[in-house]
Every structure is written in C-alpha cells, then in structure tokens.
C-alpha cells in the first residue's frame, strides 16, 4: 500500500514536473521562432551579416521562445521577471538614445562637411519611410501603427524601436526584428536596385576628392546641427540630442575619455541588452500574427523605395550640375542610415565597374546624413501621431 502510494507520488510529481517543462508547453509557433533565431545566428556567424546585432537578437529569440508555463515570472512580458526589467529600456525608449550617443561619438562627419550637398541625399532616401506609411494605411493598419512600421524604411534599428515604443508597443518586437533583419540584408537588397536605375556611364562617374575639414567646422557641426534640427522637430530631441552630444564629445578632443566610453563599453553594453531583449520579445504567442508578416513585407518594400529614392534623387540633381561636379548615383543608396553597410555597398558596386573608383568616403556623407534624416523623420511622425 505504502509502496503504491509512493509510486503514485513519484508519478504525479514527474507529470507535474513535465507540465512545467518547455516540451509540454511548446507550440508549432515556438518551433518556427527558434528556427528563425538559429537562422539569425547562422547568418551572423557564417555570413558575417551584422553579427553585433544578429547574434544577440538571434540568441534572444531562442531565450524568448523557450516555452515556459505562464505565471512563473520568467517571460519578458511578465511583470517582475528579470527579462521584464531589462526590457524596460526598450519599452520606455531608454536604449535607443544611448545607442545614438555612441553612434555620435564614433561617427566622423567630415565626409558630409567636405561636401555638404550630400546631406540632401540623406533627406531624399527618407521617402522610403513615408511611402511605406501610405502602403501600411492602404493595408488597413491604423495611422499610429503605420507610422511605427514605416520607420523601418529609415534603416535605423534604434529609431524604429524608439518610435514603436511610443506609437505601437504591441508591434515593437516585429518592427525591431524586421528593421534589423533588413539592415543586415542591405548588401543583398540594395545592389539590384542600384544597377536597375543607373547606366554604366553613370556608375563610372568619378567624384572630386573630399577637401580637408577644419577642427572648428567639426566642433561647430554638432552644435549647429542640434539647434537647427531640434528647433524644427523638438520631438526628435532624445535621439538627435544624444547623437550630436556624442559627436561633440568626440570632436572637442578634450573629452576623449567620455567619447571612448560612449563609443566603446557603453554602446556595447546597451547593444547587448537591446539585442537580447528585442530578440526575447518575439515570444511566439505574441509575435506570430498576420500583422507581423505584413510588417516584414512592408519593411522590405520601404527599403526598396528608400534606395530607389536616394539613387533617383542623385540622378535628378546631376541634371543641374556641371560635368566634373556630378555625383555618382551609386552613392544614392547610402541615404538610408544603415551605417556603414550601405556606404560599403556603394564602394563594392563602384569597384565592380572601375577598380580605381573608391566611393566609400563619398558615400559616408549621405550615410551619416541618413542617420540625422531618419531621426528627424521619426520626430515628425511622433509629433503628428502621438
């Protein structure tokens, strides 16, 4: 009798234990998401696609999709769980400005200052954002959701997270994953569009070497940049303020330690936390919805429009420029703010057609302008839709 009750006791507890394991709680959605996470990690390690982002996000997806039994204060959406505390920085938009501080401290705006007209290409590429906004509205998304989704076209992960934390919290995971995925796929998405809209003659255009930029200009840039952009769009202040502050730390040369921390340990720590928690926020139960699929499709579309917009804009302004002053349209794609990947794409494609035509430094101009442009665009969307 006693041995029987002990057997029952053990069996009951084993069954109870099993009910708590991820095997018992797993759904088909979890399996799909785990596969997505593994693909991210594979792309990062084997193909070297944005490994700094895809490894933490990919691993985060694995963490977020270990199917636990709800109510154990484990999940990222369960109040009081450790992951929920870490996710606070994402849900309240804390991490993106810190990332921007680091980006500011590591970005050299010389390429832009030596040829200021390249700034305008950074503005033209933002058409991707507003094109995607129109399509998202047509697909039935609400205006606030459409605004948050559209920012994927700016190719700026932190900005996308920042905006969605205000406008569409429920879609944040899908938007962040989509933005980072397409940023990693910049070398795959952009080249065919660049080739499609340019002639061989245009691809061979050689641009004047950039002039030397004085230290004074570099110091003035973050100050003037902040005042000019934030007075116009104050809602972009958290992102632009931090971006320009980080840049002043770098360019002033008297705060080297602060600049080193901002662009080194600090951005690394925030990237780890951001990547991991964004990845973990893709719990299959909340993530796998038809809306998420729509967001992925719109993300790809917005990237295509942004790249097209940048390339066509360069072709347009070339109509007004004299021979010898023309801009190579292959740097038009760099108007999206995937720094420095899209500039690297310009360089690679440029070299395919002329082994001695180095476009990297020229492309960095619109590339960093794109960072400013997408932050301004986010500010506008926020002020209209919040």
């Amino acid at each position: 009798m006693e041995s029987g009750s002990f057997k029952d006791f053990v069996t009951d507890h084993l069954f109870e234990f099993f009910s708590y394991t991820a095997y018992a709680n797993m759904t088909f959605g979890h399996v799909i998401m785990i596969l997505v996470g593994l693909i991210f990690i594979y792309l990062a390690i084997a193909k070297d696609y944005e490994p700094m982002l895809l490894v933490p996000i990919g691993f985060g997806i694995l963490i977020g999709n270990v199917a636990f039994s709800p109510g154990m204060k484990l999940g990222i959406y369960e109040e009081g769980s450790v992951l929920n505390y870490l996710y606070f920085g994402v849900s309240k938009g804390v991490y993106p400005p810190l990332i921007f501080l680091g980006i500011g401290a590591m970005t050299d705006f010389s390429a832009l200052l030596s040829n200021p007209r390249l700034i305008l290409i950074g503005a033209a590429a933002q058409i991707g954002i507003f094109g995607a906004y129109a399509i998202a509205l047509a697909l039935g998304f609400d205006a606030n959701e459409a605004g948050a989704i559209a920012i994927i076209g700016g190719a700026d992960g932190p900005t996308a997270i920042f905006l969605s934390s205000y406008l569409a919290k429920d879609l944040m995971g899908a938007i962040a994953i989509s933005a980072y995925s397409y940023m990693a796929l910049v070398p795959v998405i952009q080249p065919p569009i660049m080739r499609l809209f340019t002639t061989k003659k245009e691809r061979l255009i050689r641009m004047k070497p950039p002039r030397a930029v004085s230290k004074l200009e570099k110091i003035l840039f973050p100050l003037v940049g902040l005042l000019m952009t934030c007075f116009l769009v104050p809602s972009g202040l958290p992102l632009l303020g931090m971006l320009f502050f980080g840049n002043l730390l770098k360019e002033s040369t008297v705060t080297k330690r602060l600049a080193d921390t901002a662009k080194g340990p600090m951005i690394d720590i925030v990237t780890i936390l951001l990547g991991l928690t964004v990845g973990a926020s893709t719990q299959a139960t909340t993530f796998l919805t038809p809306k998420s699929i729509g967001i992925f499709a719109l993300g790809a579309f917005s990237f295509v429009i942004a790249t097209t917009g940048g390339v066509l804009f360069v072709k347009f302004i070339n109509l007004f420029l004299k021979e010898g002053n023309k801009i190579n349209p292959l740097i038009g794609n760099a108007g999206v703010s995937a720094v420095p990947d899209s500039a690297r794409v310009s360089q690679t494609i440029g070299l395919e057609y002329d082994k001695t035509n180095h476009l990297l430094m020229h492309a960095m101009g619109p590339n960093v302008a794109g960072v400013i442009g997408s932050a301004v665009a986010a500010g506008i969307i926020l002020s209209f839709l919040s």
Partner: protein
Amino acid sequence: MKRVLHLKANGLIILLVLFGSVIFQNSHAQGAVDLKLNEILLYNDSGYVDEYGQRGTWIEIFNSGYSTVDIGGMYFSNDPNNPKKYKVAKDNVSTIIPPRNYYVVWADGNSLKGINHLNFTLAEKEFLFLYDANGRSLIDSIQIEEGIGKDKAFGRLTDGFDDWRVLERPSPLSSNQIKEEPSGAEKFGKVDPTGAGMMVIAMGVVFSALALLFFIFKYMGKVLNKEKTKTTKKDNVDVKDMVEDEMSGEVNAAIALALYLYKDQMHDYENTVLTINKVSRTYSPWSSKIYGLRQTPR
C-alpha cells in the same frame, strides 16, 4: 577703447536681462506650482460620496505637470489672512499625486474624518486658496461663483487652463473634458487616409531641416577656407602651389598604410626579438625614498 568696452558690457547686460526675462516669462517650475484647483462642487445632493458614504462639498486638485507632486504639507484656506488654516498631513502615500492626475479633498469642516477632509466649509462668492508648504507662496486661488445650483460643479473647462465655467456634469477624479477626444493618430488618419499629406509635409520638413544644415555648412566652409587662405597668404606661402601639391587619395592611403605598418611593428616582444626600451625615471614625491621611508624614532 574704454568706451567700446563699456558699450559692450552694457550690451551684454541688456542681453542677459532680456534672456532672463524671456526665460522667467516662459518657465514653469516643476513641482508644487503644477498643482491647480480644478473643480469645485458646492451643493452635493446626489453625487460623489466620501469614504463614509456621505455627500459634501468637494474640491478637485489637478497635477498639470509631468512629474509626481506630494500635496502633503501644503495648506488650504478660505481666508487670505489665515493662509495656514488647514495643513494637509505629510508623509502619506495617499497625498502623492501622479503626473496629470487628480486629488479630491472634502470641504465639510470635519477634519477628524481623515486627512482629505478640511476644517472649513465653502460658500458662494468665497475664495479658496492653496498655499505651498511654507504657508506664504500662493500656488492657486479661485473665487466661487454665485448661483451654481445643486449637483453642478464650478471648474475649468479644460484641465489646468484658466477657463472657469459652471459644469453641468461634475467629474471628480477625472478630466473635466468628458467628451471623447480622438487621439492624434486617429485625427491624422481621418484627415489623411492615403498618407499623401504626411508624405508631402514630412518630406518637406526633413528636406528643410537638412537643407538648413546644407546651406550653413556650405557657406561656413567657404568662409573658413577664405580665412585660411588669408592666413596662408600672410605667412607668404604660395597658395597655388599648395593646391597643386595636394596629395591624391591613393598617396594618402599609402602613407596611412605605411604608418599603420610602422606602428604595428613597434612591439616590445616579437618572436625571438626582444626590444628593450629605456624607462625614464622622473622624480616625484610619490617615488621618492626620502618621503617613503619612516623616520627613525628619537
């Protein structure tokens, strides 16, 4: 020279005064000043009840700011000569008002009922004052209108704004604007269902912001380069030669590579080659033996 300096100093003072006055006019300190007397119901016949289930005159206070404010320690009064008539008890969780939130006190003249029951009552044409914790700084005041009627409130039409009216529908602990206001996104979505308006306006703003930067840095570059040229001319350097001698990108890249390789080879230890660098010993009291040794006791 002296006069110029004097004028400059005067100009600076005027500028500072102007700047100060602009800031003073536009600034709103966060904290106690964010509290507003928001709504008062004198004749409570069939409305909101207190924690004892009794009806009485209630006063709603609105925290118009974006930070938490503790009303504990502040004073309510209906007599300007006695600003410290009723002190709200301090160190209570219940007196903390979250941002953009509301707090209700009862003007029933029975402070024994709890900390949110004032020790005075209110009547028509009477004033109500809210003073800061020092009992001197007036935060807000209002004179109650005559003939408000039963179960009608006297309050601000929009929370925190100076548009006091008789409100047909009292709204204790909630916004005085009862009508459903659509959100910014809903309004925008309705007015611009295709997104074309957003595209035109937003692209216009993005272009304007970046075009501003373009113009500033285009001309700033030109001005700074002109200054540089002037200085170079002054120093008797032939600018034309300098421009012609400017190195191409390839030469720059070669120099950079050479420097990188040179620096990369400056190892202390490499395979079996050991480089011994001279260690400089500069004097410092921290490394001095005189200060480092303990004095021999006498």
